């Protein structure tokens, strides 16, 4: 029987790794992938608590999170395509039109 804490620490670590990717990588697609990683870490937390509290609500939430993550990945990638067409670059640091 794996203790609760182990799962939670694992998801915290995965989340932190996802954060690194979002902050540091200069490729938009990898940034999106890191966001997916973060979402999955959260999903893991939800399922863990669902198991340990004996409630189905956690799994239902994960269901919805997955649906929303799909929608978001779709739109995000469509934007990436659009941006790439205009700027021929996927570097978020080159997209600074909203600078002061």
């Amino acid at each position, binding site marked *: 029987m794996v203790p609760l804490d182990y799962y939670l620490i694992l998801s*915290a670590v995965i989340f932190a*790794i996802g954060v*690194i990717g979002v*902050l*540091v990588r200069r*490729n938009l697609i990898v940034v999106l992938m890191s966001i997916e990683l973060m979402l999955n870490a959260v999903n893991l937390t939800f399922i863990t608590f669902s198991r340990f509290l004996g409630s189905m609500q956690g799994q239902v939430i994960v*269901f919805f999170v997955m649906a*929303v993550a799909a929608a978001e990945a779709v739109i995000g990638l469509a934007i990436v395509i659009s941006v790439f067409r205009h700027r021929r670059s*996927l570097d978020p640091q080159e997209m600074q039109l909203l600078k002061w």
Partner: protein
Amino acid sequence: MDASIILFYVISVLLVLSSLMVVFLRNVVHCALALVAALFLIAILFVMLHAPMVGVLQVLVYAGAIMVLFLFVIMFLNPTASEPRRKLWWGFGSLAALLLAASLAALLSNGEAPADPVAATETFGSPETLAKSLFTDFVLPFEITSVLLLVAIIGAVVLAKREP
């Protein structure tokens, strides 16, 4: 030592490794593949946590559809420019993430581990149970999610359309 704990350790090590690969590898395709591996491993964890339905959905939707989409886009765009790296930024980011992980872990591990209420039930996490929750307590979010998906599809088509 319990078999489940050993399994857990193995899977978690692999998971952390593949996540690090997602974040640190240079080639985008390699990152995508590492992410697929990570998603699979998480699906296994789901199953271990008595959520078989969600685990299957994870494989089907996440690894199966979303990651395919990612790869599709990567190959469509075929980005050739290599991305510049900055040591300072990397160090800083890693430090921040470390802090984040540490504080989250500290916060989360302060709760008591409750007794295991789920071992008795057979149907916990099964499709029937999930469907029952979904179509009774959560029918409204369910319907709205379908609208959301519709909107996402239309939005994606509009955004990615090639201008005539």
